[in-house]
C-alpha cells in the first residue's frame, strides 16, 4: 500500500460514525483542556486514557490524538486573552498575542492562531504520512542493539534538550527509570522492589503518575495562588474575528516557516511543541520584514509559533507510529493505551493493524478541520469557560483526577500514587526540575532494559555488540554530537556572562 492509498484507506476508517464522534469528542475536550488553566494536554490525555479502554482501539487512539492537538489549539486562547498560557507551547504566543489583544485585535489574533494551527497541523500530517510509512519499512530490519541505541540515546537527547541544566532532566529521568523497574520484570518474571505490596507486582501505573505530575501539581499551584482567579477575559464579538487583509498577508509566510521548523523539531526526542514555538519566534525575529515590531504586538509573533507547535505536535507521531518509541509523555500514554488494548506498537503496526496506523493519520486531517470549525465560530464559548470560577473547577478537576487514576486498575493504591506524584510534581516545579524525562523514562525503562539484555544474550555477552551495526553507530554519533553541542553552548553562554559581569565591575 502506498502512502496515498494508505491515506484513502485511513479516511475510510476515520469517517465511520464512531471514529468521527471520537475525533469530535477528542477535539472538543482537548480545546476545553487547553483553555482551562490547571489541566494541560498531558494530564488531559491521561485522564481520558481509562475511558478509551471501553472504545475500539482505533477510536480510542483517535480520541487521544484529538485531545492532544485540540489542547494545542486551546492553549493559545488564554495566552492571548489573559496573558496566561494554557500550556507551555503557548508561552511565546502570550508575548505578542496579549499585546495585540490589548490593542483591540484579540478576535483577529485568535483567528490567525486558529488558521495557523490548522495550516501547521494539516501540512505536518503529509510529512507524518510519508515519513512514518517509509521509516516503518526500514525499522523492521532493526535489531535489539539498534532499538537500545534509539531508546536510551533518545532519552539522553530528550534529557539534554528539555531545558535547564542536564542534571535537571537526568535526575527525574533516573527516577522514572527506577519506577519502571518496580514489579515483575519481563525477561525472567522476577519481582523487584515490591516489598510485599501486591499492587506493585504489576508495576507502577502510568496514569496516576502522569495525572499527579502534570495535573494535581498544577492544581496545587492554582490553589495556593488565588491571584489567577481574579483574571477575567474580555468578551470577543463575532465581527472582531476577521483579520485585515494586511494581517492575512503578514501571517502566511510565518505560518509556512513555522510549519517547516515545527515538523523538524517534532522528529527529535524532547518537548518538541514548546521548543519549536520558541525557535519559530526567534526565526521570525531574524527573518521577518516586521522583525522590529515583534515583541510589542506583531502578528508574526503569534502566527509562526502557533503553526510550529501544532506542526511539531503532529510530527511527534512519527517515532510513535513508525518505531513504537514514545519520546513525549503524550506519546507514552498512547503507547500505554495500545498495549492495554492488545495492540503491539512498532514497525509492524502498519502491516498488522493498518486500520489503526492509517486511521489515526487520516483522523488528524479530519480533526484539524473540526478544530477550525470549533475554534473560530465558538470562540465565545471558550472565552466563557474562562469565566468559570476557580472554586468550582478546581474541585471538579480533583474529582476527575481520582476517577482517572482509580479506574485504570480499580485500585485505591493508585489514587495514593496520584497524591504522591502530585507532591513530587509540585516540588519538581518549584525546584525547576523537568517532568517529561520522568514520564518518558518510566515508559521507556522496561523497553531499554529488554533491548539491553537481548543484545547481551544474542551476542553472548560481547559489549561491542551495542555499537556493531551501522544504525546503532549512527544513532550514538548523533546522540554524542547533540550532547556535546549542548555542553559547549552552555559553557560559551556561561563564559560570556562571566566576562560581561567582569567588564561591568
Amino acid at each position, binding site marked *: 500500500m502506498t502512502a496515498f492509498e494508505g491515506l484513502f484507506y485511513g479516511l475510510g476508517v476515520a469517517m465511520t460514525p464512531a471514529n468521527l464522534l471520537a475525533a469530535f469528542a477528542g477535539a472538543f475536550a482537548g480545546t476545553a483542556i487547553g483553555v482551562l488553566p490547571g489541566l494541560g494536554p498531558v494530564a488531559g490525555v491521561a485522564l481520558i486514557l481509562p475511558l478509551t479502554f471501553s472504545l475500539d482501539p482505533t477510536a480510542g487512539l483517535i480520541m487521544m490524538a484529538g485531545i492532544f492537538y485540540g489542547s494545542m489549539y486551546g492553549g493559545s486562547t488564554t495566552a492571548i486573552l489573559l496573558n496566561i498560557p494554557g500550556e507551555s507551547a503557548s508561552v511565546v504566543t502570550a508575548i505578542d498575542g496579549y499585546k495585540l489583544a490589548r490593542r483591540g485585535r484579540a478576535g483577529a489574533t485568535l483567528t490567525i492562531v486558529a488558521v495557523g494551527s490548522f495550516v501547521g497541523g494539516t501540512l505536518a500530517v503529509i510529512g507524518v504520512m510519508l515519513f512514518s510509512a517509509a521509516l516503518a519499512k526500514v525499522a523492521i530490519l532493526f535489531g535489539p542493539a539498534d532499538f537500545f541505541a534509539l531508546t536510551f540515546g533518545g532519552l539522553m537527547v530528550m534529557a539534554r534538550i528539555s531545558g535547564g541544566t542536564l542534571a535537571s532532566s537526568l*535526575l527525574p529521568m533516573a527516577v522514572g527509570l527506577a519506577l519502571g523497574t518496580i514489579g515483575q520484570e519481563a525477561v525472567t518474571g522476577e519481582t523487584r522492589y515490591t516489598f510485599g505490596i501486591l499492587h506493585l507486582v504489576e508495576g507502577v501505573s502510568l496514569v496516576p503518575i502522569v495525572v499527579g505530575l502534570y495535573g494535581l501539581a498544577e492544581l496545587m499551584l492554582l490553589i495556593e495562588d488565588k491571584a489567577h482567579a481574579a483574571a477575567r477575559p474580555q468578551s470577543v464579538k463575532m465581527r472582531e474575528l476577521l483579520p485585515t487583509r494586511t494581517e492575512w498577508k503578514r501571517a502566511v509566510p510565518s505560518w509556512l516557516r513555522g510549519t517547516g521548523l515545527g515538523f523538524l523539531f517534532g522528529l527529535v526526542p524532547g518537548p518538541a511543541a514548546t521548543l519549536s514555538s520558541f525557535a519559530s519566534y526567534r526565526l521570525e525575529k531574524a527573518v521577518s520584514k516586521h522583525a522590529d515590531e515583534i515583541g510589542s504586538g506583531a502578528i508574526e509573533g503569534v502566527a509562526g509559533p502557533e503553526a510550529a507547535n501544532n506542526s511539531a505536535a503532529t510530527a511527534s507521531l512519527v517515532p510513535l507510529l513508525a518505531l513504537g518509541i514514545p519520546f513525549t509523555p503524550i506519546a507514552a500514554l498512547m503507547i500505554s493505551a495500545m498495549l492495554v488494548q492488545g495492540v503491539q506498537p512498532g514497525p509492524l503496526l502498519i502491516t498488522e493493524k493498518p486500520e489503526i496506523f492509517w486511521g489515526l493519520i487520516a483522523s488528524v486531517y479530519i480533526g484539524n478541520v473540526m478544530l477550525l470549525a470549533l475554534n473560530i465560530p465558538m470562540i465565545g464559548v471558550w472565552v466563557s469557560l474562562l469565566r468559570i470560577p476557580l472554586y*468550582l473547577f478546581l474541585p471538579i478537576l480533583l474529582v476527575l483526577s481520582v476517577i482517572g487514576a482509580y479506574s485504570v486498575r480499580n485500585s485505591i493504591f493508585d489514587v495514593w500514587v496520584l497524591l504522591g506524584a502530585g507532591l513530587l510534581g509540585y516540588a519538581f516545579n518549584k525546584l525547576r526540575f523537568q517532568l517529561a524525562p520522568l514520564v518518558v523514562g518510566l515508559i521507556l525503562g522496561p523497553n531499554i532494559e529488554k533491548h*539491553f539484555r537481548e543484545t547481551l544474550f544474542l551476542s553472548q555477552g560481547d559489549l561491542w555488540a551495542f555499537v556493531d551495526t551501522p544504525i546503532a553507530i549512527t544513532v550514538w554519533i548523533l546522540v554524542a554530537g547533540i550532547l556535546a553541542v549542548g555542553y559547549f553552548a552552555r559553557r560559551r553562554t556561561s563564559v560570556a556572562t562571566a566576562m560581561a559581569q567582569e567588564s561591568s565591575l
Partner: protein
Amino acid sequence: MSSHTCSVATGRRIAAVAGLVLSAAYTFYAWRELDFGRWHRPGAAIFPIAVGIILAVASIAILLERRNTSNEVHGATFTLPAGADLRRLVFVLGAFAIYFVAMEYIGHLIASALFLFVAMAILSDKSKLRLALYAVVIAGSFELFFVRFLQVQMPYGLTRLF
C-alpha cells in the same frame, strides 16, 4: 498572597541529597536481593544497578552546581505559600486524602459530594447552601456519566446496599 521566599540552589541541593540516599538504597537492594546472572545471561540486578548509578551521578552533578550558574539557569528564588495560602492548600489536600479513604466506605458518589462541598467551601465564601447544591449536582452528574454511562467501576461502599 503571603509566601516564604526560598533559595532554588539550596532546595535543589536538598533534592540532590534525597536523590543520593534513594540511589544508595535502590542500588543496595538490587545488589543484595536480585540475581546478577552473567554477561551472556544478564540477571534482574544489572539494569537497576545501572539506573542507581545514573541517579547518583545526577544527584552529585546537582550538588556540584555552582550557585551562580544555578541562579542564572533556574532563577535565584522560589516561593512557598504561608499563612492563609498555606492553610488553604493544606486543607484542600487534607480533604482530598480523606476523600480517598472515605470513598471505600461510603462509596464514590457520597464521598465525591462531600469532598466537592468541603473543597468549594475552603476556596470560596459563597453561601453554604448554594455550594451544597452545586456539590450534589456535580457528584450526581459524574455518577451518571462515568459510572452509569461509561461503565467506569468506582467504589460503591454503602451505596451498594441501595
